[in-house]
Every structure is written in structure tokens, then in C-alpha cells.
């Protein structure tokens, strides 16, 4: 095997290049924060990279940061940065998880228990 072949097996563009060196997302998104596309991207949008467009296409139904990262095979941190860009530009909406103090809601526990029993 030609050692150069290894170059083509790997992702050629490094995650930090996709985020232009940014490692901290402005919006601190949890692994389970959900993103959904609210405005389709045409593909000729200024400043959107292929990964941004992939996310916009992927999130036609709500998907978590963790799911987007898994589907795109990118680290979660990279996905957070890309989602921050899309959020700023109004392509996606985000649903945050219940804050820890709010995980007291009786209705939520009942709904989850009923849902699990019905599985």
C-alpha cells in the first residue's frame, strides 16, 4: 500500500479549519440541545461552508448536538461552533434542555414514565 493513500482515507479538512480556528462556541450548547432548521439554505449563501449546509439539511427534524456530531463525524465542539454561526444567521432554532433546577416538573416525570411504560 502506498503510504500516501492514508492521506485520502482521513478527513482532509481538519475540524479546526472548518471553524476557522475557533474552538469556543458563543452559545454554550449542551450535547442534548436540539437544533432544527427554520430557514432553508440555498447553497450560495455567503459565508456558509459545506458543513453548515449539511447541518441545515440534516436538521429538518430536531436533532441533538450529539446526533449532528455523530452523523457528520465531527467532534461535538466543532458542531457547537458551526451551530452558533447558523443560529446567528437565523437558519436554525435551538431548544435547550430543562435547566437542572427545573427538573422538578411533575408533568414531565409523569409523561416520561407513561412514555416508557408504553414502549
Amino acid at each position: 500500500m502506498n503510504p500516501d493513500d492514508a492521506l485520502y482515507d482521513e478527513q482532509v479538512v481538519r475540524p479546526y479549519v472548518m471553524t476557522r480556528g475557533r474552538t469556543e462556541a458563543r452559545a454554550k450548547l449542551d450535547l442534548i440541545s436540539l437544533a432544527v432548521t427554520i430557514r432553508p439554505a440555498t447553497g450560495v449563501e455567503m459565508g456558509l461552508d459545506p458543513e453548515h449546509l449539511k447541518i441545515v439539511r440534516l436538521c429538518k427534524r430536531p436533532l441533538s448536538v450529539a446526533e449532528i456530531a455523530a452523523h457528520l463525524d465531527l467532534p461535538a465542539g466543532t458542531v457547537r461552533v458551526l451551530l452558533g454561526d447558523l443560529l446567528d444567521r437565523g437558519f436554525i432554532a435551538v431548544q435547550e434542555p430543562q435547566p437542572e433546577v427545573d427538573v422538578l416538573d411533575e408533568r414531565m416525570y409523569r409523561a416520561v414514565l407513561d412514555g416508557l411504560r408504553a414502549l
Partner: protein
Amino acid sequence: MVSGPSDGKKMPVPIKLLIAGGFGVGKTTMVGAVSEIKPLRTEETLTDRSVGVDDLSGVESKNTTTVAMDFGRISIGDDFVLYLFGTPGQERFWFVWDELARGALGAVVLADTRRLADCFPSVDYFERRGTPFIVAVNCFDDAPRYDLDEVKLALNLGPDIPVLLCDARRRDSGKEVLIALVQHAYGRRPMAKV
């Protein structure tokens, strides 16, 4: 109050549950048994903020650790979606996992009676952090069977921590474990104690 998207698209509220325990105890198996999707893997880069182990004295730069987590999903109608995260096997990374545990409704600590000590770090972690947890003993075919009270004693668990037997391969068994966890978490709500 959780705010939703402004355009009227209804989004479920995501809820996080953790499946912890030692390496090879069946965490991913359990995630896969109850998940509506094939378990996915995600990588999270964590920064060591207070390193107790592997202390690299004199090294100025922050250490980062990449941990891989397998996870699955269970939709609860249109209102909620449960994400089940199998925590990485290297228990020594627990101390940087506050991010994973933050906001989690609760945790299942999976135990194997052949290597019971493997779940000590998880039990310690959730006790210290105050995350509601239960212990589920995964019944491997060739593992010795113990009375649940013996397991409770060996793990030095408080009387209020539920311990149950399970088969991580079976969906109905995993489902029972999750129901027990949510019931336990419900009883542990600060409001429930008032």
C-alpha cells in the same frame, strides 16, 4: 421556563439520562436495547480543570482529553426526547465529566457481580454530585448470583438507593430499569422532600 423557537415549530424538550459502570459491563448494550435509533458515537473534548491523577506539575498548558460516548434516543410523544449516554469506560476521567452529568435527570450504574468494584467510582461520583442514581446488576450468564441485599452491602449503598437485577440485552429489562430510575429521581426531587 424553557423557551422554544419563535417561529412556532414545536420542539420536544431533551432530557439526559446516563448509563455508567465499569468497562465491558454492558452500557452500550443497554443503550442499544432500549434506543429507537442504532446507538451513535460522539466525541467530546474535555479540559482537565482540577487534575488529581496524572498531575503534570510544571506543565503550563491545559490538558485536554477526548472521550467517546455511545448514546441512543427514546422519543416520548411530541413533548420530550430522552437521550441515553453510556459513559466512557475509563473511570479515571469521571472528574472531568461534570459537563456530561450537568442537567442529567439521573443515572443507572450498571454492575457486574464478577467485578463489583468496577462500579465504585461511578457510585462515588453520583453520590458526591447528588445526581439521582440506581444500581442495576447485569446478570451475565456465568456470573455468580447474589442476593440484592448483599450487593447493596458490598457497595455500601444507602437504604434509599434502589438495586435491581437486569439483562442489558433485553429491551423490556432495560425499560424496567429506566422506569425505576425515573421513579427514584421523581422521589428525590427537592420539592418532594418538603
